[in-house]
C-alpha cells in the first residue's frame, strides 16, 4: 500500500523532476563548464580554466555593473522597506473605504515593467517632465536631470520604484493582520505607548515578513532588466549609469556573443544569490516561525 502511494507520488512529481534536471541542474552544470571556456558564438570553445573569472577582476564594465546594482540596492532596499511598512501601517487602519485605497495603491505593482518605465521616463523628463515641474514649483531652481545625468540615473530608477511600493506593503499588511490583537491589548494595559508598541510588538512580530522581503529584494535587484533596457537602452544609459548586472550579462552573452564570459558572470551571480540564500536559511531558524494552525486558513 505504502509502496503504491510512493510510486504514485513520484509519478505526479515527474514533470517537476524532468524540469529540474533538464532546465535547472543540467544548465547549471553546463553553465559552469562553459564559464571555463573562451566560447564565443562564432568560434569553438577552448578550455581556459579560470581566466574568465580573472578577466572579470580587471573588467571595467563588470565593476561598473556591480557598482550600479549595489548602488541601487543601497538606495532602494532600505527606502522601499521603510516606505512599504509605513504604507502598510496606514492601510492597516480600520477605516471606511480602505479597501478601495488598497486596490489603488497596489495597482502599479502589477503593471508591466516596460510600460511603467516608459511612463516614468516621460515624467522624469529633465526640462518639462512632471517631476521636475513639481520640484520647480516647490522652489528648487535646478532639479536633477535624472536619466540624462550619470549621477542621477539610479536615483531616478529608485524614485520610479517608489511608485510600486504598494507591492511590498501588501505583504507587510498581511503580516500585520496576523499579529494577535491580544498582544496590543496586553501592552496597552501595561501602559505601553504607541511608539513602544510599534518597536516591542509590531516590529518583532513582523520580522519574518521583513526578512523575507529583504531577501527577495536583494535577489530581485540582481534581476533588474526591463527598466534598465527601456530607460537606458541596451548599452545601459549615459556613461553606463544604468548598466545593471543582468543587462551587462545579457549584453556579453547575446549581443557580443561571448558565451564563456557571460556564463562566468552568471556564476558569480549564482554565488551571490547562494550567499544570500544560505544566510536566509541560517537566520530563518531564529526569524521565521509558523503560528499554529496558520496553514489551515
Amino acid at each position, binding site marked *: 500500500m505504502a509502496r503504491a502511494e510512493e510510486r504514485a507520488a513520484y509519478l505526479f512529481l515527474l514533470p517537476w523532476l524532468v524540469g529540474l534536471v533538464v532546465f535547472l541542474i543540467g544548465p547549471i552544470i553546463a553553465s559552469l563548464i562553459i564559464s571555463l571556456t573562451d566560447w564565443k558564438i562564432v568560434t569553438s570553445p577552448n578550455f581556459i580554466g579560470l581566466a574568465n573569472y580573472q578577466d572579470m577582476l580587471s573588467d571595467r564594465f563588470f565593476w561598473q555593473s556591480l557598482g550600479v546594482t549595489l548602488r541601487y540596492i543601497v538606495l532602494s532596499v532600505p527606502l522601499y522597506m521603510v516606505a512599504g511598512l509605513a504604507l502598510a501601517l*496606514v492601510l492597516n487602519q480600520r477605516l471606511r473605504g480602505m479597501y478601495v485605497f488598497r486596490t489603488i495603491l497596489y495597482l502599479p505593482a502589477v*503593471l508591466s515593467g516596460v510600460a511603467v518605465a*516608459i511612463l516614468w521616463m516621460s515624467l522624469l523628463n529633465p526640462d518639462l517632465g512632471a517631476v521636475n515641474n513639481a520640484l520647480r514649483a516647490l522652489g528648487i531652481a535646478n532639479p536633477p536631470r535624472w536619466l540624462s545625468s550619470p549621477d542621477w540615473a539610479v536615483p531616478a530608477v529608485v524614485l520610479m520604484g517608489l511608485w510600486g511600493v504598494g507591492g511590498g506593503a*501588501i505583504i507587510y499588511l498581511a503580516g500585520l493582520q496576523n499579529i494577535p490583537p491580544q498582544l496590543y491589548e496586553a501592552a496597552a494595559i501595561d501602559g505601553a505607548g504607541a511608539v513602544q508598541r510599534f518597536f516591542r510588538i509590531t516590529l518583532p512580530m513582523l520580522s519574518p515578513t521583513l526578512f523575507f522581503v529583504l531577501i527577495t529584494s536583494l535577489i530581485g535587484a540582481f534581476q533588474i*532588466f526591463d527598466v534598465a533596457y527601456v530607460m537606458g537602452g541596451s548599452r545601459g544609459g549615459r556613461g553606463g549609469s544604468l548598466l545593471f548586472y543582468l543587462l551587462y550579462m545579457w549584453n556579453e*552573452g547575446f549581443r557580443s556573443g561571448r558565451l564563456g564570459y557571460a556564463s562566468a558572470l552568471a556564476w558569480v551571480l549564482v554565488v551571490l544569490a547562494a550567499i544570500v540564500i544560505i544566510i536566509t536559511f541560517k537566520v530563518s531558524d531564529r526569524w521565521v516561525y509558523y503560528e499554529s494552525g496558520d496553514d489551515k486558513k
Partner: protein
Amino acid sequence: MATTVKPWRDGQSAAQTFTWPRIRRLCGVVFVYALVLTLCAFILLPLGWMLTAALKPDRVPIFTVPTEWFPSQYWHWENFARALTAPSRPFLRYTLNTLIIVFGNIVGTLLSCSLVAYPFARLRFRGSAVLFNIVIITLLIPWQVLMIPQFLLFFNLGWYGTYLPLIVPSFTAGAFYVFLIRQYMRTFPRELDDASRIDGCNHFQTFWHIILPLCVPVLAVCAVFVFLGSWNDLLGPLIYLDSNEKFTVAIGMANFVTRANTPWNLLMAANIVMMLPVVIIYFFAQDKLIGGIASVGLKG
C-alpha cells in the same frame, strides 16, 4: 513612525461625546484619510497624465508647464488606432503573439503545478521533505543565471525563433505555483482522500475528481499571476524571438521607445493599451491576488 490611530477599536470613549481621546481620534482619522488620498493621487496622477498625452494631436507638445494631469482640451481617440495599426509596429499582431505565449504558459503551469503540488500536499512518500526543500530553494534561484545554457539547449533543439522556449518550461512546474497550490491543497480534510479511496479511486482519480475541482480558486489566482508574468516579460522574448512578426507587446513597446524621435502621443497611447489588460484583470481579481501574494510572503 508613530501611528496616530490605533489599529484596533477601543470603545472607551463611546459614552462621552467631546472628550480628549475622542477629539484626538477624530484628528487621527482625518490625518489618515488625507495621507491616503495624497498617496492615491501619487499613483493615479501619472496615469491621468499618460491619458492626457495619448489624446493630444501630433503638433501639440506633450510636455507642458504646468503639468496637465487630466485631459481637458484634446480628445483624439483615433491615436489609439494609429498607435496600434502602424505597419512597422503591428501591435495587434504583437498582442496576438503575446496571448499565444500567455495561454500556453497558463495551461502548462496549471496542469504541471497542480500535479506536482498534489503529492507534496496529500501523499506520504520518502524524500518528500527534501524534495520540497529543493522546491523552496529553486524559488530563490534567479532563472536568468541559466539563460545562456538554456538558450544553447533550445537553439540546438531548433526552437530558436519559435514560442516553444517561452512555453515548454512552464510545463515543468514552476516552484512558486507549486508552493501556492500545495499550501491550498493542505487545507482540505484527510477524510476526502480516505472516502475516495474507499470508493475505489486510485491516486490519480482522487486528484482529478476530488482534489482538483476544489482547487479552482487557487488555480484562478495562479492563472492571473502567470498572465501578469508572461504578458509583462521582456527578457525571454528578447532572447528567443528573432522577427518582427513574432514579437510580443513588451518587445514592441521597448523598440518603440528606444527609437529616435518617438511620437510621444502614440507611444503613450500604446503604453495605455499595454497596461489595459493587466488593469482589467487586476480589478477583477485583486482581492484574491492580494491574498495569494500575502500568503507567499508569510510562509516563504
